[in-house]
Each structure stands twice: as C-alpha cells, then as structure tokens.
C-alpha cells in the first residue's frame, strides 16, 4: 500500500481513521465509575465473596466457627503463615517463575529458630527472627542466582533446591527435634498473642501483604516485575534490569518463607522433619485461586492472600459442614480447577465483547 497514498482521512476529518474499525476507543467512563467497575470485575472480589459464603455457611451450622474467641482467633491465625508464603510465591509467579523450595526453606529456618534459642539462650527474639529472614533471603538468593544467571527454568531449579534444602535441614537436625520446652515463653506467646482481638501473626502477615501489594502497584520496580512476567524476552530487549528484579523476587520469596519458618515455630512450638513439606503446592494453589496467572504478568498479591485464607478456611469449615475431613483435599482440588476455569470463562467473555465492539 505504498504508492497511491490518498488518505481517506484528509477528506473526512479525524473521525474516519482506519484505526476506527480495529481499535477499541478510549473509554469515556468517569474515573469513579471506572474504579467501581474495575473492583466489581476483579477476581479478588469474587474469591473474597466465596470466602464470605464459606464462613457464613459454616457459622450458621456451627455458631462457634466464628463467634467464639477461639473460632475468631483461628479464623485469622491459621492462614497467616500460608499468607506469607502465598505473597512471596505470588510475586515470583508474577515474574513467570515459581518457587517450589519455600517449604524446605521454611523447614530450615524453623529448625534454625529452635537451634538458636537452644544454643544461645539469651538471644533476643528479634535477632532470631532477623536471622531467619536472613537465612531465607540467602536461600532465595541462591535460587534467584541459579535462575537468573543459569538461564534455567525456575521449576527445575527450585525442584532441585527443594530436595537440597530439606536434605540439609534433616542432616543438620539429625535426630534432634525442637520441643516447646526448648523455646522461651515470650516467643511462644508471639505465636498465639492477640492485639485488640487480632493475633500477632495475622498482623505481621497483613503488614507484609500491604507493603508488597503497595509496592507492586505503585512502584516502578513492581510494575517491572509484571512486565518481566508478561514477556521475559521483551523485557530484556526493553532494557529492564531483568536479572536484578528476578533476584529480588526470589530473595523476597525466600525471606518470607524464612519469616514463615520462625513464625511456624512460634505457633506450633515443635519442629519435626516434616515441617512445611507439601506447603509449596498450597502456596502455588493459593496464588492461582487468587487470580495470579500461572504464566505470569497478571494478578495481585491481595488475591493470593485471599486465596490462602480460602484454602485454610475451607479446610476448617468442612467438618462443621458435615463433610468428613478426608474429603478436604478433594474440595481444595475442585476449588483450584473451578478458579482457573472461571478465569477462562471470564476471559472468553471479554474477548467476545472486544469482537462485538468491532462489529459496531
């Protein structure tokens, strides 16, 4: 279409651009209406409603599910550790990677917590937690370095470090294990204490969630994580600091798993060889249920956190709903499938709308 360039456009003014047929026009919605539709259409809201439904159902069957001091506390407390992991996992998945080693990292730091308290009785709690964060970050850094510089998919690398880190933990621990009696009382109280009816662990998880969620939404670095996950090759061509961002994502995931390990010890008081085994898949599941696309680039950590809440709460609610707890896992599986099928249905509807808008 090169030689005879008579523009139809010149004759009829800007409105008849060739783009008209193929581009969706700038939206004319007011900012508030746009914000409201965004929220209403969001995946986070729908999953949150499912959560509310589960809680309401379980509570009508059994009042103490929510309305007893323990019921309320457990509703908030139980998901906290998974929330931390899901937030870290969410960030990693947004970059189109995955971190399967979080369960093993958690096991290592949970044991480290106990070990530190046993070997250095006077150590302040904050120092121990910091040590866990640090160890987790270092383990995450190893993952990140291997992924970013080895040019190897994270699934393979973290599957390898899943074995390695747990192997190290078990070798280090030998046949030792940590009992509640080995740990200082205040540390154990951290695991169960509440402030204004909200457990400490939940407060920590929510603070972490808020910080990470805010960063992802409003900081350049956060947006770059999305860009990397959306198309890693384009991100390199674009000149984004891909390696640095990937390292950061894995370090964050590792550090949060480290924190989760310390909090696990505070909450459960004992550290056995099976701490956190299999929890990596739960963290991935929480992220997926919460609307983070498994191939990166979209979703929020808010969704991942709500996903984690839903997973844990469903587990707790099933017995109250009269379903044998053996069926819990089947329900969780059905939930994951439901979530991704729903995503697809919504996406197909959106695509159809785009097609219709072109037909006008």
């Amino acid at each position: 279409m090169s030689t005879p360039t008579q523009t139809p456009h010149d004759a009829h003014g800007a409105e008849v651009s060739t783009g008209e047929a193929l581009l969706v026009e700038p939206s004319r919605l007011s900012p508030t209406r746009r914000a409201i539709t965004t929220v209403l259409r969001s995946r986070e809201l729908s999953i949150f409603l499912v959560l509310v439904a589960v809680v309401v159902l379980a509570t009508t069957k059994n009042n103490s599910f929510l309305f007893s001091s323990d019921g309320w506390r457990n509703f908030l407390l139980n998901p906290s550790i998974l929330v931390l992991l899901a937030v870290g996992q969410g960030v990693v998945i947004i970059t189109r990677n995955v971190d399967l080693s979080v369960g093993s990292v958690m096991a290592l730091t949970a044991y480290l917590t106990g070990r530190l308290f046993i070997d250095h009785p006077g150590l302040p709690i904050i120092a121990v937690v910091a040590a866990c964060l640090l160890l987790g970050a270092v383990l995450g850094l190893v993952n990140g370095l291997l992924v970013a510089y080895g040019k190897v998919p994270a699934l393979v690398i973290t599957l390898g470090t899943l074995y390695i880190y747990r192997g190290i933990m078990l070798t280090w621990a030998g046949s030792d294990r940590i009992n509640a009696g080995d740990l200082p009382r205040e540390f154990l109280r951290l695991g169960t204490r509440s402030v204004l009816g909200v457990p400490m662990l939940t407060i920590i998880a929510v603070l972490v969630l808020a910080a990470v969620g805010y960063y992802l939404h409003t900081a350049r670095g956060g947006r770059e994580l999305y860009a990397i996950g959306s198309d890693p090759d384009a991100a390199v061509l674009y000149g984004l600091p891909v390696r640095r961002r990937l390292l950061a994502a894995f370090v964050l995931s590792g550090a949060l798993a480290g924190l989760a390990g310390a909090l696990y010890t505070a909450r459960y008081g004992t550290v056995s060889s099976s701490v956190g085994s299999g929890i990596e898949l739960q963290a991935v599941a929480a992220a997926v249920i919460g609307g983070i696309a498994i191939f990166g680039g979209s979703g929020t950590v808010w969704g991942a956190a709500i996903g984690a809440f839903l997973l844990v709460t469903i587990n707790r609610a099933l017995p109250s709903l009269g379903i044998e707890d053996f069926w819990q896992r089947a329900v969780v599986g059905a939930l994951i499938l439901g979530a991704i099928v729903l995503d697809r249905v919504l996406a197909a509807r959106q695509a159809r709308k785009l097609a219709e808008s072109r037909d006008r």
Partner: protein
Amino acid sequence: MTATDTAVPVLELRDVSKSFGPVVALRSGSLRVDGGSIHALIGENGAGKSTLVKVVAGVHRRDSGVFELGGESVDFSSTADSKAAGVAVIYQEPTLFPDLSVTENIFMGRQPLTRGRRIDRQGMYDEAERLFDRLGVRIDPRRPAAGLSIADQQIIEIAKAISLDARLLVMDEPTAALSGVEVDRLFAVARSLRDEGRALVFISHRFDEVFALADTVTVMRDGSYIDTLRIDETSPSELVSLMVGRDVDELFPKVAATIGEPVLQVSGLSRAGVFHDVHLEVRAGEIVGLAGLVGAGRSEVARAVFGVDPYDSGSVRIGGKDVKAHDPRAAIRAGMAFIPEDRRKQGLVIDSSVTRNVAGVIRRSIAKAGLLTSSMENKAAGPWAGRLEVKTSALDMNAATMSGGNQQKVVIAKWLATNPALLIIDEPTRGIDVGTKAEVHRLLSELAGQGLAILMISSELPEVLGMADRVLVLCEGRITAELDRADATPEAVMHAATHHLEDAS
C-alpha cells in the same frame, strides 16, 4: 557523505563484526548518521541490517570494530545502556508486554512519578493520549496490549520510541505491517523529529518509502558495507544492483496462464466481529489477489478458509466438495496449502531443522504405516529445499538462525511438497528483499502456469496489481469490489478498500 563531513556524526560504526557461533551475521558493517537527517539502511534478507541495529541497541556486543556515539566510543552491554545514551530502537519484531496496558507498555521503567516515588497513573495516561494524538490513532490507553493486531502493536512501538525523546531513533522495518495511511503519519512524525535535529535510521525493503523519506541511504550485502549514497543522487535500479550485486530483471514476471475449472469456492462465510458474507472463487491457474487495508480481515478470511480458525456460517468447497470447518488437516487433505503472514510464529517450527520443517506436512504420506525415520524425512525434504535454493549450510540447521527470506523459502518448500491444488499465501514477500522478492514472484507465476490456483493476500498494492489475474477488495470484513486485472487500478482498489462505510449507508 559530502555535506556534513565536518560535523561530528551522531552515530558512527566502522568495520563492526558479529558472529553467532559459526554464523557470521555481520562481517564489516559501517554506518554514519548525522543529526537532522534520515538515513535509510537497505540490503537483502540476511544482509545483517537487524544485527547491526541490535549492536547499536546493546542487544548484541560487537566482536570487533568501532562504535561511536556523538564522537565517543561506546560499548553497550544492555539495552538499558543504549537507552540511557539516547538511543531509541524499534525492533523488527514487536516486543510488547501483552498483560499490561498500552500506556504501561510505552512508559515501562520510566513512568512519571509523584510524591513518594509513586507512579503517577493519570499523568501517564494523559501523556499516552497526547502521543496517540500526535500519531493520529485512537487507542484506549488503558486497554491491554493483548489482542492488538500487528499493525497496532507496531504503532505502540513507534509511540514508545518517540516518547523516549532520543537523539538517535532506529526503526527496523517499522512499516512492514502498516497501511498507507499509517505509513504517512509515521513519516510525518519522522520528518518532524528530523527537523528537531535528531538522527533517524530507517530500514525498509520498500524503495518507494526509502525514496519518500530518507536523505541518505547505506547499502549492505552479505554482512558488509557496500556504499552510502545521497538519495537524490541515486535511483532504485542503482540501489538494487548494489544490493544484489547484479541486475534484477523484472519484479513482477507475470506470465499468462490458462484459467481452468474453479478450485476453491467460498460462499457466505461469516464470523461475528471479523468478516461477513464473504463469497469468493479461485480457478485453476489463476492468481486471485485479496487487497484491503490492514485490519480489514483478509488474514482472518484465509485462516477460516484453511480451517485454522472457526467460522459461524457459510461453506468452503474444494473441487466441488465441502471441506470440514475448523480442521486444517481436512483442508490439507482436500489439497489446500497455506502460507501464513507471521512466518516465525505460524509458518515455521522455528527451533526445528530445515528438514523437519520441510517434511512437516508431508510426513504422513512419506511414513510407512505411520512409522517414520530421519532418513526418510531427509530423502523427502532434500530435493525441495534444493529446488527453492534455500541458502543454508546444512539441512539440519535450525530455521531460527536463517534470515527472513530464507525462512520464507523453507515455508514455501514445505507446502509445495504437499503438491496442493490451492495455495493461499498471506503477505508472500513481507520483509523480503528485492532479489528474493522477484524470485518468489516468478515462482508464484510459474506455479499458476502449472495449473495451481493461488489466493494471494498482500498489503503491497504494486504486488497485488502486478501479480493478480483478479483482485478482490475487503473492507471491514466485507468484500467491496471484484476487479479484473484490466480494471484493477490503484485508485479503484483504494476506493473499494476505504469507502465501504459511505457506500453502505
């Protein structure tokens, strides 16, 4: 290289080389671009233009040679470095983030910030709208990049590059996917940038564009610098012979063929939102051109006919027999061959060998009882690759490392091997140099002469007019004109391609 010899050039490359393993992509590339000028870079497929661009952009590091920016020697190790040094690049393949909004795509990594280093979203959207206004397009700045056509993607790339406010703007075939209107707007913007004193490098295989836009032109061949000429002191034929190293006889070697029975009959084909009530017929020995603006839905029609995409209603018949909808295998069995527009993504299994690609469709017929060995494939693929003179050092070479023209030949070879009755070819020469272009055209003509029915989609009007026996024009998914070779003038085609709306209402 006369007028501005004294001033320091914005970009200077001398004897730059770059190899990928055994493949020498660039032997000695040289390029000198002054501020306030538009410099065209031309050369055959695989001449090393894109490689040169990628060296400038910091995607690749040169193996040797001089690379100076504004008189200072530079050595970029990433595209971030080149960006920081004021170089903006539009790559040959669009590089967008599909999940992010169009606006974020433009400003990624350098979003405007407000207090507390927060991203200023509103400011960003406003800025994007201003950019789109300048380019004269209407795109919702909030829509995701996913689902944009290649042309739209290219426009976003251009907006991105312009917004960088760079002193050097390099565009690697930005117009390959654009229609005349959009090309014009792009050129207007490019000229205004030049007038602001910036330097532009423009790569294209279309000479009319080169002559319309550029001030100087550098020719490359086989990875080496050949010559630099002022545009007003040269002619297309001179450039062609410099590029090819010989004279190209005829660009559209159309030979008359006897037109036979109808091979393809499409009637009432519709798909909501894409195309409506399409009727068309292609006869043996006939080349039917399908023209239209970008986004008119030509590719979609072709894809639906071949069964890659579904359609809502209508029928497709080959040799009088209905072909099952949405089933490429049925189409192949019926004798259709389809060369899609995006050869890297659709035409080739790009990371596979030439052999595997060429034998890709015919493997079912060369297999014995469904069983197949590599030597059977080699035996079948070798002659076809040879016949099209695919320039590769080995048949088991990865198709990914070949230049665009050679890749296109592999795709053609793979489909000719099926011995089809109908060939649908979408943008047969997109991004292909003149030399190879003429070869492709001669081949199409020859095939039609042998009785093959050909449906050819092209955005290059000269190509359509030069090759087709009959031209169908598509506008917004509807056929708005059917013109015989004699009636098919540029004006008639353009009218049909753009004036559908008024005619209908």
